[in-house]
């Protein structure tokens, strides 16, 4: 049994979610190969070769793969993946975009966002926004799976010494092209990898008030997230959204500020180790999942919290 893990990267840096995906592969058992599909991503391939437990790295370097366009990357993964028992990718926006295209090309059903490995062919995954957990078994020759990073503790980024093999296969479907991207720049940790997350909701009242959360986050070394209500109201950009349709996080400490606790939001953070809720409405549903609740005006509580931590 050999498992192919698709590396998540931006041609420069290997994303941490790859380490959680390799951890899921290790739970399945067998040899683990990592595919780096990109352009000029030699440093990523070298980083992938150092991941503990990886025995081979395939480096597919082609201009067609530079922006992870699924029309070009999926045929590559499907071609290489035929010889594997499993193909795994992180359930990131790239993984979600590319892998179903691979599954369809291989004529197999995909299993999305697994949170645990029961055996080599059986997995658990949340459905209905996490209100139910399904156990799914696959009899596909190649099992195509996306992995929810928060379900698996990452393997060590170092300790391995896999060989890097160049892959010549070039697929350019010629039906799509990259136009541009606007990426949020931040010195704070990435939401899905942060140990502490501070999130704001509609109770923040406006975007400017998020400065209170940024100040607190910087003191704690935390990332800053938001509820869908805050994003929809235009307070902050969509990439900060935590929830069923946004980012799924499971930090050591999650501080929900002015967030009522809609089901959709809880689906994105309820696996956090410790949850703190600060809300002036003591009936807010967020208190039902919080380890520590504080009924207070957030505009008084947050500056005080920032001073005391």
């Amino acid at each position, binding site marked *: 049994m050999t498992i192919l893990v698709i590396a998540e990267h931006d041609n420069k840096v290997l994303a941490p979610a790859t380490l959680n995906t390799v951890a899921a592969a290790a739970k399945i058992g067998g040899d683990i190969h990592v595919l780096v599909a990109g352009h000029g991503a030699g440093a990523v391939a070298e980083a992938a070769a150092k991941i503990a437990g990886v025995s081979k790295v395939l480096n597919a370097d082609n201009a067609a793969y530079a*922006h992870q366009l*699924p*029309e070009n990357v*999926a045929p590559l993964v499907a071609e290489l993946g035929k010889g594997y028992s499993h193909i795994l990718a992180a359930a*990131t926006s*790239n993984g*979600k*975009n590319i892998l*179903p*295209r*691979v*599954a*369809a*090309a291989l004529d*197999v*059903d*995909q299993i*999305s966002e697994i949170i645990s490995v029961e055996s080599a062919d059986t997995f658990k995954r949340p*459905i*209905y926004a996490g*209100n*139910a*957990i*399904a*156990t*799914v*078994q*696959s009899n*596909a020759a190649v099992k195509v799976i996306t992995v929810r990073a928060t379900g698996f503790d990452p393997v060590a980024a170092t300790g391995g010494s896999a060989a890097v093999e160049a892959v010549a296969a070039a697929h350019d*479907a010629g*039906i*799509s092209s*990259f*136009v*541009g*991207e*606007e*990426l*949020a720049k931040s010195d704070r940790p990435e939401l*899905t990898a942060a140990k*502490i997350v501070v999130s704001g909701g509609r109770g923040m009242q406006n975007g400017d008030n998020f400065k209170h959360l940024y100040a607190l986050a910087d003191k704690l070394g935390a990332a800053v997230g938001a509820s*869908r209500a805050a*994003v929809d109201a235009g307070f902050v950009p*969509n*990439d900060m959204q935590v929830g069923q*349709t946004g980012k799924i996080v499971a930090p050591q*400490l999650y501080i929900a500020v002015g967030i009522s606790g809609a*089901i959709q939001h809880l689906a994105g953070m309820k696996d956090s*180790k*410790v*949850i*703190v809720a600060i809300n002036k409405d003591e009936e807010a549903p967020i208190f*039902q999942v919080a*380890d*520590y*609740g*504080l*009924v207070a005006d957030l505009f008084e509580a947050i500056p005080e*919290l920032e001073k005391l*931590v």
Partner: protein
Amino acid sequence: MKVLVAVKRVVDYNVKVRVKADNSGVDLANVKMSMNPFCEIAVEEAVRLKEKGVATEIVVVSVGPTTAQEQLRTALALGADRAILVESAEDLTSLAVAKLLKAVVDKEQPQLVILGKQAIDSDNNQTGQMLAALSGYGQGTFASKVEISGDSVAVTREIDGGAQTVSLKLPAIVTTDLRLNEPRYASLPNIMKAKKKPLEVLTPDALGVSTASTNKTVKVEAPAARSAGIKVKSVAELVEKLKNEAKVI
């Protein structure tokens, strides 16, 4: 330009679902069903394209039970011109649905297919991508902006780090994210008019599509419950608990 929109009948997003006692699935008896929220956004986008004069005809399709006709009528009331139901009482996988939609695409030859990015029941996020693969079309998933120009479409996508724009040759597949638009409500006169719009019923057999699956749901359980903790009285007490009891700061 003809636009095909795929919609799914799902449990209403306000319903808190319960797992059945025998762990065979969630209990959907006497539960309110609605059009999947992302599919509503897909219908709205198609209607806006028609209002702009870009789309000439909107065909709405659903794969599901007889009762999915309700959601198709809703789409017709919102502005779709005609509807197709691929009727199946089975619980189909995303690949099976994508194969059925591919057969409808072959029949209808739309220039653009718009789907929701995921259904809020299975949370798969697969069908649009699979349909794109089977059709050999480009895909603009998680769209927050769609602009047609000539024989291509520019799709701005919500990605992990921000936003990305891709250009796709038509025909193409678009899947909607939350912020693409705000769906309208159907007016009463339009609901009445929708009852007279054509609705064709097909079957997987008639389309010559096998819906066999490589996946099997073994059981469905309730998630581990998280119990409420304690209320602290002050910020100072909160900090003390976080430092000494939870030891997370």
